[in-house]
């Protein structure tokens, strides 16, 4: 409004209309920027500061300890376990989620009727509160009372330990996370698929290409930006796994025998249950570096410009 009123005459301080508009834009942009700096950047810097200090959460005295917290973590088998588990969640969860998501998106793309309904159904877990969903899954996995073992036994198969079996627990948790993010994945892929011009397929079909060839030569390369986005996004989700694990193993968090423990859950335990804020901050710093490195690598390696 202001610009319209003043548009006709030159401005007092000699700002041209364009400059004034930009100024206003920056002014409005500064508000979220300040908020972001205060809520995100400052705490991140302060956590770096804490990571080189010893701080038991209560004490006003926080002596500088250099890299001692990092050394403690390096010698801590529970931290190593949490780190390995976190990588395993990524390696198990993401391929499962992407393959299933792409498969479902391709199927949904083929149908016209009920596509919206199916998409909504698949999307539903994504908007279900994580805590509630985790508790329901925990009951489904219950060794003695859960329906999953009842089904297995009905088929004549032996009952499984699921969350009580250190060999299966991580997969059991990952399955729940895949279920939860699948709908989101499908929606992203559907959008990506819709964005591929039909012309390419038609041209290829004229040239005699069919089925798999179309998929490998057209769909997959042109879907690359979408694939990279969802890969990067879900890597971050899996590297930050916390709520699902905490709630599905509520009595022995990250258990049994640390088999489901993740880095973020361990950070929480160190900081808020054992009051070792310095070590918790150090673990956070490590996680930050890992996420940053992996994300940059993924962006660099995976995003290739596709030329046709």
């Amino acid at each position: 409004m202001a610009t319209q009123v003043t548009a006709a005459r030159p401005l007092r301080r000699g700002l041209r209309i364009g400059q004034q508009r930009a100024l206003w834009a920056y002014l409005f942009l500064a508000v979220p920027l300040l908020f972001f700096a205060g809520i995100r950047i400052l705490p991140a810097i302060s956590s770096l500061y804490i990571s080189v200090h010893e701080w038991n959460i209560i004490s006003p005295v926080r002596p500088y300890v250099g890299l001692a917290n990092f050394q403690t973590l390096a010698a801590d088998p529970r931290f190593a376990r949490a780190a390995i588990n976190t990588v395993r969640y990524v390696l198990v969860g993401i391929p499962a989620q992407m393959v299933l998501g792409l498969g479902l998106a391709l199927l949904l793309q083929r149908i016209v009727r009920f596509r919206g309904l199916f998409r909504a159904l698949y999307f539903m877990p994504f908007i279900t509160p994580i805590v509630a969903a985790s508790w329901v899954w925990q009951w489904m996995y219950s060794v003695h009372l859960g329906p999953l073992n009842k089904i297995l036994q009905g088929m004549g198969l032996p009952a499984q330990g699921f969350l009580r079996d250190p060999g299966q627990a991580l997969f059991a948790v990952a399955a729940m996370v895949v279920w939860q993010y699948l709908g989101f994945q499908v929606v992203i892929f559907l959008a990506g698929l819709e964005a591929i011009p039909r012309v390419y397929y038609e041209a290829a079909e004229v040239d005699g290409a069919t089925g798999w060839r179309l998929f490998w030569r057209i769909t997959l390369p042109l879907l690359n930006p979408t694939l990279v986005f969802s890969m990067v996004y879900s890597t971050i989700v899996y590297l930050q796994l916390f709520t699902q694990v905490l709630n599905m193993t509520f009595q022995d968090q990250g258990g049994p025998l640390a088999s489901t423990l993740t880095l973020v859950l361990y950070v929480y335990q160190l900081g808020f249950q054992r009051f070792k804020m310095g070590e918790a901050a150090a673990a956070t710093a490590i996680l930050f570096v890992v996420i940053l490195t992996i994300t940059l690598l993924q962006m660099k390696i995976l995003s290739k410009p596709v030329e046709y």
Partner: protein
Amino acid sequence: MNRIWTAIIVGALVLALPAAGIGQPRVTITYWQYFFESKVKLVDQLIAQFETQYPGVKVAHEHFPYDAYNQKVASAVPAGQGPDVINLFYGWVPLYVDSGYLQSLPPDAFPPVQIERDYVPMIKASKLDGKYWAIPTAVRSLAMFYNADLFRSAAVVRPPVTWEEFQAAAERMTARDDRGRITTMGFGVAPSGQDHHLLREVLFRQWGAAPYSADNRRVTYATPAGAEALRWYTEMITKSKVGAIDFFPGAGGYRNAFMAGRAGMIVDGSFAIGAIRRGTRASWGVAPLPGRTVGGAPSNFGSYWVHGLTTRAQGPRREAAIQFLKFLVSEQTQRLWLDAVGELPAYKRLVEDPRLGADPVMGPFVSALPYARATFFVDEAAQRQVLVDAVNEVVLNNKPPRQALEEAAAKEQKILDEFWAKRKRP
């Protein structure tokens, strides 16, 4: 001369006024606790009483959700805010002492000799560097809750007195479907619930292994006797299969299973009485924890929340805080606390009251107080994890109990060493 007299009279009046409480500036002190409805209501009442007794003092009562309690303290204290009198779990006291956040109880107001004479023995866990740093109003202990209906239908005629009887009763009450899946547990096991306390302070001791050295610096349970205790406990899960870990998932799953009639017996604290009273459909009862042999030495785990004076309480606020603390732990308050909150009094004298001992629900908990011990935890979360993992190593990985226990002891020793190495005070 007149002037001199006037000055003397004025001077005397000035000195006398505060004593009479007239014109004295009101001192406001702050009390913090976590939110537990019955406690919050009671403390509000107590503060009103206290303020009529001490008109010069005003007490501000603030409370926070349990999960956020330490975080709240952590953020308020460095900012120079926070309470003058604070309610803490006894296991946090070493941390608060080392952080320089508590002042030791003044010996003239709370003589250590008197504390040790008047209180149940478990409160010794709050003595650090030869001084008491905090003091409780009420304490808790463990006992066995049993489902009387299940007892009846399994023809268990009385609550078990020995662990052997306990196991037999559990076996008779356990029900399974045709596939062998448990539908009702005889014993609602919960290593990460109260069973790690049961192992530490009850089973290890009764089997002949003291869990820690007298100075709390060494872990001493990794003996053949300790391993036998662990073997007995884990075989209820692996061999006789009378219980399953996480049978009901979630926090307090064992208690929920009991309340739902799916567990014949559980070991739980007196703090569970309220929930069990409200939520259990079957008829139920409480019995003291069994012993290894009939008439053998009993043992129990006790725990408590303490009130401490923070370093913020100085000058007139300190005097007021001491008065309030004395009021909070007085015999009268302890009686009210028992009625309103259901927690057991911390005074020996009150515990020995025959009426309390005869109470069918409170009695078994009360009878354990003279010998209940509060573990000197330096990092409760980590120390609990160590024993929970030891049980899981045996149950899930078939590790021999002796080996699992030795590994546990080594891990816990490291936690203790770290604590003692960091203590700056003598």
